[in-house]
């Protein structure tokens, strides 16, 4: 079920588009609903979003599977999205990935046993002059080193407790 609060948030997006174009808000609506549902979408939620925005379920599903930022499987609380594209690669992102894997004890794509962290390798996030870099939630972390990464993981664990 989409909560009242979420519906209100969705409404604030639909207002931006012409009245018969509610479906323009589908990308944000899916994000809002995903966040409410523990960082994960499911077919029923997607259908509900579609119904709420007067669009066919399959059209919402198309959107939910086309864009990178939707999860269809239960996810960790924190997703570390580490860029491994060219500028970051040139600046050692591969080493950082290995470093993260070994200090978390999981491979990329897997969730730590406490459900707290998952590492995803992603394509360019548009911060190449700050390579290597990664993103957690809304925040970018740039000019990373192994030491910086350790600190970030540490603080995630602290907050997570």
């Amino acid at each position, binding site marked *: 079920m989409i909560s009242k609060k979420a519906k209100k948030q969705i409404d604030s997006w639909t207002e931006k588009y012409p009245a018969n174009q509610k479906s323009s808000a589908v990308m944000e609506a899916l994000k809002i609903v995903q966040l409410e549902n523990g960082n994960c979408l499911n*077919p029923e939620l*997607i*259908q509900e979003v579609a119904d709420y925005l007067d669009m*066919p*379920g*399959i*059209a919402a*599903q*198309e959107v939910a*599977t*086309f864009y990178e930022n939707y999860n269809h499987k239960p996810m960790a609380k924190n997703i570390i999205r580490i860029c491994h594209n060219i500028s970051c690669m040139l600046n050692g992102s591969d080493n950082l990935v290995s470093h993260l894997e070994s200090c978390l004890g999981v491979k990329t794509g897997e969730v730590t046993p406490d459900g707290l962290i998952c590492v995803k390798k992603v394509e360019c996030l548009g911060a190449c002059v700050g390579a290597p870099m990664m993103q957690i939630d809304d925040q970018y972390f740039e000019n990373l080193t192994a030491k910086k990464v350790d600190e970030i993981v540490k603080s995630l664990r602290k907050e997570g407790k």
Partner: protein
Amino acid sequence: MFEIEIDGKIVNANPGENLITVTDREGISVPRFCYHNKLSVSANCRMCLVDVEGATKPQPACSTPVSNGMRVSTKNDKAKSSQKAVMEFLLINHPLDCPICDQGGECELQDVAMSYSSDVSRFNEGKRVIADSDIGPLIQTDMTRCIHCTRCVRFGAEIAGIMEMGGTGRGDSLKIEPFLQEGIQSELSGNMIDLCPVGALTSKPFRYELRSWQMNAVEGIARHDSVGSNIHIQTYKGKVKRVVARNNDNINETWISDRDRFSCDGLNHENRLQKPQIKYDGVWKETEWDTALVYSTKALLREVIDNKEESKLGALASNNATLEEYYLLRKLLKQVGSDNTDYRLNIKDLSNTINLDSNIKIKDIENIDYALLVGSYTRLEQPMINHRLRKSSLNGATIDVINSMSFNYNLPINSEYILNSSQIANLLARTLKAILLSKEQEIPGYLDKFKVSDADTQLANKLLSSDKSAIILGEHLINSDNSSNIANLISIIAEKTSSSTLNLSETGNSIAAKSTGFVPNENGLDANEMLASKMNAYILLDVYPKYDFHNSVSAINALRDEKTFVIALNSFKDSDVFDYADVILPISSYYETSGTHTNVEGEMQSFSAAVGSPKDIKPAWKVLKVLADLLDLSGFNYTDSSKVTSEAKQQIKQNIEHDREINLINTKGVEIIWQPSPYSTDALLRHSNSLQATKIGQLNTASMSASTAKSLKLSDTDNYLGVPVVISEVVADKCVFISSSNETISEKIS
């Protein structure tokens, strides 16, 4: 119009056309997969790339508008090398196992690939495999074969009006699939099979049977509704294997309904009657045709002719016989001396029927700008009419609906009135009054008591102000107390507002029945009168009482009367027929007989038999002819059915005059609208296992509002007339809308 040059040839082109329209018209072959002339252009397959002088890149013929003086090569090195490149890309992930693919032999990919001398594949990276899901009983998927042309996706969004297939994921994990595993629901879904250029979507009932080249294709006419869609019937060794659409832009374009496509599934049902049978002392015995026919004629002589009780002979027919069958049965009776023929078995009160002419061509429906739909869920009842209506709405037409229940329309409805039949009649009356007021014309007495509201005036104005408006009357109101009033009001309103009318209450081939005079004249008895007066003998043409009669209980009782001799011509076994008949003559079903179907615009489309009838089964028209011969009636020496056709056509009655008397009635109590599910309207459909397995085939609900339920002391765990109750506020008050594929267990219409 200007000239362009294609492959050195000067041809004419119209501004705004795409190149492929011109090459197609000129017979210049350009390969394509995603392009389809009835769908929007998507230009995604890139197969149609051609070389346009002046353009650095090759251009897709399907989406390149022509321009004056354009010079195009479809076959030079540049064009060919692009086409070859695309072909290779299409094949790298496509299975190369045509011999075991269901589409083998009619695969557009295979055809095109052949003409691009296939090199040894340079792709060694492992092919993509896609897991399939079950999308319903009609369509088999094999999505590993999909080439992502998106024809099926566009079909859903543009033609079916419900987007069911979509492309999920992206890049090379793009997958064409429906959502939520509910399967495909559209009543037009089978067209996706025709559209799919490869073997990704194929016919499930037909799976793994045959190659297309092994089959014969016979031109045919679909007879399950009053459209008469054009079809190809594909046959093999005397059996109907598959039905596909045949293009006719005046009627069905390139589409057909699932009902027309998959009904043939029922032909081989074990319930088919195989041999004539005679009931001796209550026991049925199979017999030879000669014996059965002689037995039948003797009975007719004995029961009606010899004792000069000709008026005690009746003939009843279902509404899906052929024009020829109606004509011959009527002629037979007439020559014997009886006028008792009728096909209107499902009408409670035959003095109160719908008489409304249709005066719009099917193809013109898409050009109207306003439609008022009364008592119809066209989408399921007449899918191809609905398709035109949808097109009109996409072209900007406004559609208003007056129904007793709200349905899942696939086109935008402007205003929807949910009313019971008395309220509908009153609304139409007020609208007529508003029209007359606005035209400052005389108000007839029966409108005196009505007060016109602003809403009524608005409705009137829409009809008055539209250039091309149409009023469409469906089949829901055939048994209302105001049937004839409603039809007459519509016909007057249409006249006053220069609107067209379309009467969709005549279903199957009933327009042919009417036009051959199969309805009794003043000397004859109608169906209800026959059943009420003890008849000596009946000839019943493909009648299945529990489905066909509005009151099957009393009908069966009348027919099983000991003193009544019943000759039943049927194609399928039916326990009630075994119960009341004295002789059963097994007749050919759809596709096994020649004949003529008359559609709602009066178009008479003749067809020949696509296959012979199984041994010991005979076309009804021949059976009737032989019966007549054996009775020594004259004028029945037809050598083939086309002779019957031309004779019948000469005597066709057109635009029968009806009186337009209006006498509005206020219905009391709860009103029942019984609508058979669209897949149970004739015996062949009821025996098509694939159709019966669909959601539409399994419709079984008695919908009513909470207050109606309360007044009937029902809850949603109860059954009403044997059908599960559904409480729903989209049903008019004091109205029960039954949508069911079941046979009735009692009176349908209380």
